[in-house]
């Protein structure tokens, strides 16, 4: 599924790297507000959904080789966070959806949870 399709499903606004939205394909995703858990439990998920907003969200995504972060519950990162993501080619989305429905909609559309580690 492309990030563009994901953005449509979540009715999300693309905050940066929109030029990549049609070419970057995501196969699995994870949702968490704890970056500790993302670093410890995630493997090969291309996308993170989170309600946490700080620069470490972008750095965590980078270390995990993720290409997209969606902020749920209408959370909006500041300009510095957007710039950080831009410099790493990580696409940022923001959606009004809460965590559970956001994950549910994507799961239903075929985005799975990846292999457990």
């Amino acid at each position: 599924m492309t990030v563009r399709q994901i953005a449509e499903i979540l009715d999300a606004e693309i905050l940066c790297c929109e030029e990549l939205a049609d070419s970057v394909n995501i196969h699995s995703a994870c949702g968490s507000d704890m970056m500790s858990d993302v670093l410890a439990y995630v493997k090969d998920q291309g996308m993170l959904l989170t309600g946490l907003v700080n620069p470490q969200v972008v750095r965590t995504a980078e270390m995990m080789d993720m290409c997209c972060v969606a902020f749920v519950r209408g959370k909006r990162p500041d300009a510095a966070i957007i710039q950080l993501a831009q410099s790493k080619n990580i696409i940022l989305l923001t959606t009004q959806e809460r965590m559970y429905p956001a994950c549910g909609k994507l799961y239903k559309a075929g985005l799975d949870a990846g292999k457990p580690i």
Partner: protein
Amino acid sequence: MSELIHLHYDVDGEDFVSCGHASEDVRRTLKSIGISGEVIRKVSIAMYEGEINMVIHADGGVADVSICEDGIVVTLSDTGKGIADIDQAMQEGFSTATDEIRELGFGAGMGLPNMKKYSDSMDIKSEVGKGTVVTLKFNL
């Protein structure tokens, strides 16, 4: 084993926002010299966990990375409060993090076990009131 590249960073203990700079730079360097994606990921995750620990549990410190023909050694040294019981700290889920740290998305007690998982060897030396030195080795 002769050293090919040495990288040195100061990690500012007061600056949560910038924390991760050292790991980001190491990642860039490893990419630029053609290290495999698999190794880059292991080094990035383990070093980033260590860098975060230096900021949230200590007062910052220094990170040194030595890249050799057959391996990468990451050394994280701080002069923070130290770890009283290293075996306990190594257990999954053990954390002394405050609610304030949890609100920043850290403090699940998973960092040290994760650093052990992703490195090929890990050594911790710590003295209460003096500081902590974590050494991570990765084979190439």
